[in-house]
């Protein structure tokens, strides 16, 4: 399976991007005005502590050297100490990864179901009222802010009908599914317009393809033609789109976590910004960027698995 060889050498190709990510993250923090040592220590700035920080991060050295201190620390998993949580940043961040991951995967699943149903319906009833309505939803949906959507859903479904809790994460798996439904659904609704539009266009394009004529000439049942042929071919550009949009997915998740008080990376990011806990901000940004890179890699693997024509 030499088509999958790229899995081995793609990480090496990604190194320049990873370096770039580390540089950007480094610059972000260093652009903050003020003595970095005081920033990192906050109110507890004793002269000894300041000197210690200077030593650890090489703050009295030129910026370029500081960067290498940063990378070296990074590789060792040394992300610093959180001012607010009084704990290593790494631990603070790791603690919050799971809720965000849960939310993301939940949201992707709901988004896929939503766009498959809407996209297929729109394509099947092309030109008719159902299609018009769905296309309208796609256009209007692009301008629907996720945070407002979340609040409206909260108002109607949590407070109004009492079907879902207003906030939080839940205790066990099922409880989490319950707590995170509204946040995930909000993110899914935010992603659905783009995915639906794309899937609809793909389905329409594929259903007029020649191989579909040939399949019809073979007298294959309609559901076979749709699921085995049209749908599989339409899936690939849509999965690609999902990969391209993972950045937006994460952005939506950040906001939604704030709306619903979900204890994930997103709400950590926002609260750390206000608390001036800059090392945490840096760490979260870094992890989310790595998440995007990893997801794109995954999407590439899935695409190669699905499409035999691709020779990476």
């Amino acid at each position: 399976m030499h088509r999958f060889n790229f899995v081995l050498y793609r990480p090496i190709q990604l190194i320049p991007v990873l370096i770039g990510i580390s540089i950007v993250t480094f610059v972000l923090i260093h652009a903050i005005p003020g003595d970095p040592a005081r920033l990192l220590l906050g109110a507890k700035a004793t002269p000894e502590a300041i000197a210690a920080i200077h030593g650890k991060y090489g703050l009295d050295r030129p910026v370029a050297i500081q960067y290498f201190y940063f990378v070296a620390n990074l590789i060792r998993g040394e992300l610093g100490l959180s001012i607010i949580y009084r704990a290593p940043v790494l631990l603070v961040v790791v603690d919050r990864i799971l809720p965000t991951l849960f939310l993301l995967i939940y949201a992707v699943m709901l988004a896929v179901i939503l766009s498959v149903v809407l996209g297929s319906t729109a394509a099947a009833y092309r030109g008719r009222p159902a299609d018009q309505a769905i296309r309208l939803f796609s256009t209007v949906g692009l301008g629907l802010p996720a945070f407002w959507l979340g609040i409206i859903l909260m108002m109607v479904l949590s407070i109004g009908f009492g079907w879902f809790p207003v906030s939080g994460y839940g205790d066990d798996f099922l409880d989490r599914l319950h707590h995170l439904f509204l946040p995930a659904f909000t993110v899914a609704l935010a992603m659905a317009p783009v995915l639906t539009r794309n899937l609809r266009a793909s389905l329409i394009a594929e259903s007029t393809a020649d191989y579909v004529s040939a399949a019809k000439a073979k007298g294959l049942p309609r559901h076979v033609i749709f699921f085995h042929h049209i749908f599989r071919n339409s899936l690939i550009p849509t999965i690609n789109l999902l990969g391209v949009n993972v950045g937006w997915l994460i952005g939506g998740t950040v906001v939604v976590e704030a709306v619903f008080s979900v204890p994930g990376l997103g709400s950590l990011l926002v609260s750390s910004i206000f608390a001036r806990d800059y090392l945490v901000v840096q760490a979260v940004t870094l992890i989310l960027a790595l998440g995007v890179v990893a997801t794109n890699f995954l999407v590439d693997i899935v695409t190669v698995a699905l499409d035999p024509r691709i020779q990476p």
Partner: protein
Amino acid sequence: MAVLDVADLSVEFATAKGPLRAVDQISFGLAEGEVLGIVGESGSGKTVACRSILRLLPGERASISGKVLFEGRDLLQLAEPSMRELRGSRIGMIFQNPSTHLDPLMTVGRQVAEPLIYHQGLSASEARKKAVELLRLVGIPDPKRNADAFPHQFSGGMRQRAMIAGAVACEPRLLIADEPTTALDVTVQAQILRLLLELRDRTGLAIILITHDLGVVAATCDNVAVMYAGRIMERAAKAELLRRPLHPYTEGLMRSRPTAAGRGRELHTIEGQLPPLGDPPRGCRFHPRCIHAQARCQTGAVALEAASSTHSTACLRWREVMAPA
């Protein structure tokens, strides 16, 4: 015994500019084991006619009238589920561009096996075994391994063979071949045509061969129908047609072919263009381009007149203007 008997088939499309008759009252038939060539330029209606036999016209804006009798049943009266039963099992179809007519994401073997699974109820593994045999039958090397290959890994000729394998998998009585060799290299063309004739010899398969190439007709067909602007202009046994065409259009077609004998001389062309099918010429549809046209060619319908038992022409003046026997 006729496998297919088409009578007064007409296909009309409802367009924004009004009704468009792509096919106007054509009639033809073929018997078991017969290869009928339908010749015409692009836009002559040959593809529309044959797709309407299988009721495979894209879109719902087409109305088909006439009678299409296959094995005693009028296909135009059948409900869609019954048509689906016939397609791919009793009537097969292959297309011009094998590259775009095969699903790029499905193995060739599976695509050949599909009709066996859904028409004959074979299991996937049984169907695959049969598919391998079919691939061998159509001349694909190393069929066991190639059954697991994807279309993009095949050459054009191999793809067409694979498509043929899929079309004849359920041993149909009729095969409609829509310009099967047009997109292929000349050497490969000959191989594919030979394959079709082999299949005919082996199973008595009747073949409708749609083409614009008289050379293909000469090599393979038993009988020929020449179409122009939605109508049949001439119908004859191949040898008769080629030896002595009885319609100016057919004659024009034959003279337009570049031949070795004509090397260095200017190519003959038929002056003019296809008429707009939304507003066709009255009377004989070829008269605007015909050097023999007279007043009476412009009025009234022109039906096929039998010049002999094996030759009919739609030219009013065939006795005067076409070469004597």
